[in-house]
């Protein structure tokens, strides 16, 4: 699996856009299946540091498309396990250092293909150690999470930690109340959340903070109307969603914004039909894949978040997704 962008481009950037655009399920499946055959492209190698994320995105997309069998299960598990370190953590690919971002993807992939017990059977470290690797990255002082031993805290890591630990049934390993307090410190006047205390609201970070609060069972702390108001203003006249005020729309926010709205019961505060039209326009209906905007090159990252957005708003033909 790779993150190589292209070869196709999503829809027309200008000119006539048909009113009725179909979701090209088979093309998307084919697109994802052929990603790993592109090893003669330099970009395949330049994106190796995202490989495990890429597998997760591709696999999730296939599950949403109703073709979970389209990637070979055993080879997927083997690849995940080959990226593990003795510490319990995972790198992006064999030879890459362990980091929270890939450890979370590894747990998510193994969870998706129902293979978490493979960690105990043939991993370099078993489930318990994987959970401990994640838990040890929590700061005792602030409750936040670092990405690895080199520091840098970010609400992305906090959400990832809680997500993976909940899949492993090991949330007891971390200090949840402290993590919740940290998230509250990232809250802003507009109801949103930033990457760290003091930082401006950003739809991606809002997803991580609201998602973490949902896992912690503390959605009562969210200022729903205020946040819902800010998030709903991310929708632009063409139906697409942006990440911050005065920014351009981008398919990946179809997930970050819409799932956050769903978690606070405000998904109906945006126009779902217009959003699905926008996402469909970003498809490459010949070669498969979805781009950030109509006319741009497709890649697997935008493919999964476009499909997840469509699934969330109940687009027919897709498997339903859980907003958290």
């Amino acid at each position: 699996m790779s993150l190589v962008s292209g070869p196709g481009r999503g829809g027309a950037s200008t000119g006539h856009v048909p009113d009725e655009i179909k979701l090209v399920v088979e093309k998307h499946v084919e697109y994802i299946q052929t990603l790993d055959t592109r090893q003669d492209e330099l970009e395949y190698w330049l994106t190796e540091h995202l490989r495990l994320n890429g597998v997760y995105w591709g696999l999730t997309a296939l599950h949403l498309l109703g073709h979970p069998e389209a990637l070979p299960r055993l080879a997927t598990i083997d690849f995940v396990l080959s990226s593990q370190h003795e510490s319990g953590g995972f790198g992006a690919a064999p030879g890459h250092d362990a980091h929270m971002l890939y450890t979370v993807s590894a747990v998510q992939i193994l969870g998706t293909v129902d293979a978490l017990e493979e960690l105990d059977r043939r991993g370099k470290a078993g489930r318990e150690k994987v959970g401990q690797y994640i838990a040890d990255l929590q700061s005792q002082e602030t409750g936040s999470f670092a990405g690895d031993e080199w520091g840098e805290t970010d609400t992305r890591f906090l959400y990832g930690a809680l997500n993976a630990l909940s899949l492993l049934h090991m949330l007891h390993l971390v200090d949840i109340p402290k993590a919740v307090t940290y998230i509250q410190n990232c809250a802003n006047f507009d109801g949103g959340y930033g990457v760290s205390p003091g930082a401006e609201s950003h739809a991606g970070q809002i997803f991580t903070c609201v998602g973490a609060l949902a896992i912690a069972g503390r959605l009562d702390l969210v200022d729903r109307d205020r946040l819902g108001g800010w998030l709903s203003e991310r929708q632009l006249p063409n139906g697409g969603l942006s990440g911050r005020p005065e920014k351009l729309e981008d398919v990946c926010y179809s997930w970050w914004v819409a799932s956050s709205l769903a978690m606070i019961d405000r998904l109906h505060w945006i126009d779902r039909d217009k959003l699905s039209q926008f996402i469909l326009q970003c498809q490459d209906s010949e070669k498969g894949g979805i781009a950030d905007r109509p006319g741009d090159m497709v890649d697997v990252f935008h493919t999964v978040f476009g499909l997840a957005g469509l699934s969330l708003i109940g687009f027919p033909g897709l498997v339903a997704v859980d907003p958290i």
Partner: protein
Amino acid sequence: MASHGVPRASGVQPATDQDWRKEQQKIKDYKGLVDSLNGRIREHQFNTETFEMTSKLLKWNPEYYTLWNHRRLILRHRFQYSNSRGPNDDSPPNHEALISLISDDLVFLIPLLRKFPKCYWIWKHRRWLLDEASGLLTASETRKFWQQELALVGKMLNLDSRNFHGWGYRRTVIEALERDALQAEGLSTSMTRQEFDYTTKMINTNLSNFSAWHNRSKLIPKLLDEMKADHQVRKKFLDDELELIERALWAGPEDQSLWFYHQYLVCTFDPKYTADSMVPEITGAESMAYVRKEIMKVREMLDGAEDCKWIYQSLIHLDRLYHELGNDWFEEASHIEGYFDELTKLDSLRLGKWNDLRGRINI
């Protein structure tokens, strides 16, 4: 990510045989360099040549996070052993050598930051260098580095005034400069006023800078606390902010950054938020007087901007707030109904929101 905003024009031509061969050669070079570097790190060959290999690869691909870790391992080794008396001398390094190591690496990062201003790993590495400096050097030596960082981040924000990495790094720099250990004697410890003025400058350059408005909202409570401002001073401060935002709104009534800041100021009058606002001791009667005045001022903006949805949105918010404060409605029901009707027409994307809010209001 892989391809944000890559237009359709790039990379569309089918590759010729020659292009293909060239690409294969590039892949071979790249992989060869990566393998060789990884081997050297495994063998703890933390020498200049290995270090240069990380430089070469990181310029090529700064997203390759493991390479940054390699670089830090080498730097740590150098911090420990680098010494003007030769490589085999284990005595502790002198500060000049350390300063030049850190300084050289900060310089190495500048073109990378300019080329990849949104790359998390570059900012992370920069932050790491400064943290190392704090641990290895004297307070005044470190302070010099942080002061240079303030100048650098100012330049980065001039290039892109919405870069949230830049704004975040700026807050880190300010925090560091304010830290007691770094204070040279006799200097004022707080930079809040200076940072507040910086947001004014950024806003004056571009009113739509939501990042600057946001930072301003974070600085004001701190500034007022540091001023030990009393109730009257706080009210005056609020008045000035209201005046500033209203002037801006007249110039750009369609600008959502401005309306969100206006909403932030109006929070002061909402009992749910008053305690954390800039005038925490404001009374109900004072709040009502303010809200009344705001309703009248915002209504005036409608003149010539009847199709601006933000005005109706704000009026509904203010009317609801007024009602919550005193149980009376300031405007007639027909007016408020009219605002909802306008929003239904002008803001059809958010119809669900307006229906919800309309259902909750019982005039």
